[in-house]
């Protein structure tokens, strides 16, 4: 694409098509569908972090008046050990089945054991108390250090570490060991004149979406089933649920409701297969809604991690070696995003010698799910803290040092490809030149700079655009809209067709009325589904030209399309899109365009954040006083929503850095399963987050788009962490930087 391209609609901030429904309360979310004859499902959850189920007897509950179905793990037809599609996370079918309803053993506080459907939720709740269950409580394993220690209690006796040189003979809590390398790490450190190294810890953090998981399902006697749920990928819900229940894809329709946040946490299933079993057993539609407590205990979180990183540089600032060792908690089943941590950690830097190893470790916590740039924030926290320390040791400005070592076009990545054009340098320059960076700090204040890298993905997307006889149309896409993507789809189609965005209504089709589309994750929707939308819109335009040509008796090549109007280059005729649509019945029937793609060429998005904090040294309380998020969007289709993504990512990262953490007792029980003691930032906690959009176009997208949804959560951990370090003059290693921890650091009791 040419960089100087002029756009008619793209780059404006139009009103979102879903806005009216949302602000008037009319939009329907996961819990909002009710069906005739519907009953309510509830789940009995484990009161222990780690225990064998010695005895399970549901007969008293089944006999309770009003109870219509009871489900346990034994209701899954024998599932096999195969990988399944689940967005950015990874889980085998066996593990998924054992996660949604425990088999023989409970592996975390809140692990689902039995589901009951009854006429009312109160009856279901009462019946849960009638389930007779005996546990043999086992010692829980709550941290990678414990889990990796010799003699640790083993969660899965059949799990042997993969990726070791020699095949192990004893079971381990380490599911996988992996490594990435480039150059000669030892030579790199030999070449170094300054070396920094440190160990870091990041806590378990939840995505914190406001809408709890919810679904309404109906299993019909003829085998035709329906699921209505809040999800980031309804095709993935269909795939997992169909496999768990042994259904053909064609018999299971999944409808994505409006979604009140997901951040990766709604790329897998928890309730849906269980509800469908209850529906199959009871012959009734079943609704299930999680309480907030269940959401915290049994869904989401992002991995807690322990990492060690070492960086060497020459006195002139050239980084010669970067080494790391990352251990990520997977939760109860294997599949943490440690691989992504390893792939992203050093990637903002063009350094010849790199070595990183990763460990995927199971612990007695909820199975982790994707969380916005899964795996990257934790790894980059360690790396960026140290790059800031390195800048101090070298007497260099931290942005300047990063510019000297920044990855750019042609830089070899540790995970394989060489970068095409990327915008890290431009982001660093924009941060350096910002007003924020020029502003002096006041007493008790500190500043942190951090960069972040995320790949972004493409993948399959399907779109069709149905034109109406009056020249309006419907864009049917298959990517649930979490961050305002319908507005962007509308704008991209309008741009390609040359008509006002408002004439096209974007909707999310269900799994039957649009072809397979990968879920909304990996920052892929505006890029990949956007490309499918453009393709469908261009298909519409091509057909418009043909119809006009047939009316004028010329060839389609003789028709030009300008601003939504067909022009006859062989004469004076013109026909608007609306006129062609109105006459479609006479030129071959109604017009619809199609775009079914497997998008390649996703463009990485780099981000650079600046954070100023003020620390109350008497209490350890940290206030973020100024914050700027700079990020490369490639091309901002809808700048306001791009800013929203930057700000949202920054806020989640600030929360993770300052107060968010799962707090467990010695017994492995979660003590803060609610928003009161799991402290995400509230609006009054934060200053306005300044967003700076950098646009270095991605040449593989017709309009230059790079995904923007995830990179923004990567830099804040170190931007905040280092700002605190800078303000108190004491090294920071562990998050969150809650008041007691910061106070202890100041007191020298860190």
């Amino acid at each position: 694409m040419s960089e100087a391209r002029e756009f008619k609609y793209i780059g404006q901030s139009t009103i979102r098509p879903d806005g009216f429904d949302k602000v008037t309360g009319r939009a329907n979310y996961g819990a909002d569908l009710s069906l005739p004859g519907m009953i309510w499902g509830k789940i009995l959850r484990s009161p222990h972090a780690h225990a064998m189920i010695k005895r399970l007897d549901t007969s008293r509950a089944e006999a309770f008046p009003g109870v219509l179905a009871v489900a346990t793990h034994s209701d899954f037809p024998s599932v096999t050990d195969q990988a399944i599609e689940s967005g950015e996370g990874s889980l085998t079918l066996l593990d998924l089945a054992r996660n949604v309803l425990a088999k023989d053993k409970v592996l975390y506080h809140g692990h689902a054991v039995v589901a009951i459907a009854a006429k009312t939720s109160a009856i279901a709740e009462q019946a849960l108390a009638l389930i007779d269950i005996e546990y043999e409580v086992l010692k829980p394993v709550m941290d990678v250090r414990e889990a990796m220690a010799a003699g640790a209690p083993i969660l899965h006796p059949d799990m042997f570490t993969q990726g070791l040189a020699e095949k192990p003979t004893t079971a381990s809590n380490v599911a996988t060991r992996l490594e990435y390398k480039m150059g000669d790490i030892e030579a790199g450190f030999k070449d170094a004149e300054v070396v920094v190294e440190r160990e870091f810890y990041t806590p378990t953090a939840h995505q914190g979406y406001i809408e709890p998981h919810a679904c309404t399902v109906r299993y019909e006697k003829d085998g035709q089933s329906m699921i209505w749920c809040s999800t980031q990928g309804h095709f993935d819900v269909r795939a997992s649920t169909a496999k768990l229940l042994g259904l053909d894809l064609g018999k299971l329709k999944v409808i994505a409701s409006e979604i009140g946040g997901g951040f990766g946490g709604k790329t897998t299933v928890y309730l849906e297969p269980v509800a469908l079993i209850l529906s199959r057993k009871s012959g009734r539609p079943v609704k299930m809604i999680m309480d907030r407590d269940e959401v915290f205990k049994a869904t989401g979180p992002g991995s807690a991690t322990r990492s060690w990183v070492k960086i060497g540089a020459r006195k002139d600032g050239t980084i010669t070696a970067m080494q790391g060792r990352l251990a990520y908690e997977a939760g109860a089943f294997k599949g943490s995003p440690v691989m992504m941590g390893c792939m992203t950690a050093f990637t903002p830097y063009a350094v010849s010698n790199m070595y990183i190893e990763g460990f995927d470790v199971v612990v007695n916590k909820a199975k982790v799910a994707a969380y916005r740039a899964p795996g990257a924030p934790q790894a980059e926290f360690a790396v960026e803290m140290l790059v800031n320390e390195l800048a101090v040791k070298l007497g260099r400005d931290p942005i300047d040092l990063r510019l000297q070592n920044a990855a750019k076009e042609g830089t070899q990545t540790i995970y394989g490809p060489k970068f095409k054009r990327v915008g890290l340098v431009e982001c660093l320059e924009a941060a350096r030149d910002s007003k924020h960076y020029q502003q002096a700090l006041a007493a008790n204040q500190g500043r942190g700079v951090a960069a972040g890298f995320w790949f972004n993905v493409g993948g399959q997307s399907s779109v069709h655009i149905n034109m109406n006889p009056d020249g309006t149309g419907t864009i049917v896409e298959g990517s649930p809209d979490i961050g305002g993507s319908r507005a962007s789809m509308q704008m991209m189609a309008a741009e390609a067709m040359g008509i006002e965005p408002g004439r096209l209504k974007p909707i999310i089709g269900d799994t039957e009325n649009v072809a397979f589309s990968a879920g909304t994750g990996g920052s892929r929707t505006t890029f990949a589904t956007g490309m499918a939308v453009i393709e469908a819109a261009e298909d519409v335009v091509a057909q418009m030209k043909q119809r006009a040509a047939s009316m004028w008796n010329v060839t389609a090549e003789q028709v030009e399309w300008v601003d939504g109007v067909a022009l006859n280059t062989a004469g004076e005729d013109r026909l608007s899109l609306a006129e062609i649509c109105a006459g479609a019945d006479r030129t071959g029937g109604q017009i619809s365009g199609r775009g079914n793609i497997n998008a390649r060429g996703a463009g990485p998005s780099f981000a650079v954040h600046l954070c100023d904090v003020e620390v109350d040294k008497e209490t350890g309380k940290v206030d973020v006083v100024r914050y700027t998020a700079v990020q490369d969007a490639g091309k901002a289709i809808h700048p306001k929503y791009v800013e929203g993504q930057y700000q949202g990512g920054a806020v989640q990262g600030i929360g993770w850095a300052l107060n968010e953490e799962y707090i467990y007792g010695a017994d492995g029980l979660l003590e803060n399963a609610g928003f009161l003691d799991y402290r995400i930032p509230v609006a009054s906690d934060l200053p306005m987050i300044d967003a700076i959009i950098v646009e270095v176009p991605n040449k593989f997208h017709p309009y230059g788009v790079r995904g923007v949804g995830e990179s923004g959560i990567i830099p804040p951990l170190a931007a905040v962490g280092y700002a605190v370090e800078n303000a108190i003059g004491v090294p920071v290693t562990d998050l969150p930087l809650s008041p007691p921890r910061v106070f202890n650091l100041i007191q020298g009791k860190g």
Partner: protein
Amino acid sequence: MAVVDYNAPQSVQEAVALLSGSDIKTKVMAGGTDLIIQSKSQAVEPLRVVDLKHIAEMMSYSLDDGGLSLGPCMCCAEFTALHDVETLYPGLVEAAYLIGSTQVQGRASIGGNLCNSSPAADTIPALIAIGAKCRIVGAGGERTVAVEDFVTGVGRNCMQSGELLQRILVARPAPGSRDAYLRFIPRTEMDIAVAGAGISVTLDSQGVCTAARVAIGAVAQTALLVASAADALIGTQLDDASVAKAAAAASAAASPITDRRGTIEFRRHIVGVLVKRATLIAKERAQASL
């Protein structure tokens, strides 16, 4: 919860009668911001509710030479907008203003905060600091109890079943006498105090402190009136050294627990910091009132 019987009496007499007339567990309700949440967690026990919000006197206030007489069910949003009250009792108003959020304050009341008797309740130390009293009424008649004696334990107070809180009474502060309240939370709102401190001081025309009350919250089973901290202030100019002494006395008097919101050491330390800072705010206000 299963509310099986909801009542909205129009008078205190009617309310008192309802309180003693049933076998089912009966609860008085003001704003319900504690009650409703608590009864949700007590799964299915039947509950009878006596809603006091329809009794005019429970929702009103008066302020005259005798001081403040507050209907305990007035919601915080209304209370914190009373400028005449704020002028005289700025600390109590700021405590009420800290409860929850704008939405919560539309319902939550000071009486509810007091009767819920949580160790972390924000208005309790503020009420103790200004010497507030509770007028309690029941079938057996009326009695008046100081706030520091009203709360007896975690979630417990001296009211007998069949009694309710009818009025909160506070003497009018003299010129030179003002209060302040501070709490510590990790965020800026929507949180529960890790520690809290309510202070009132009286200054004479020379700036000497002639009377003081220091109350601390969230650092013991109940809010505490700390006489030793007040003693450290009385007779001084509220200079740094005496304020530091008061802070140390408050830290020493605290007997906090370690839980997910803070450790013993951290809470002890923080409550001292709050006492120091709140004292300085109260001092400034007292000077301005002279």
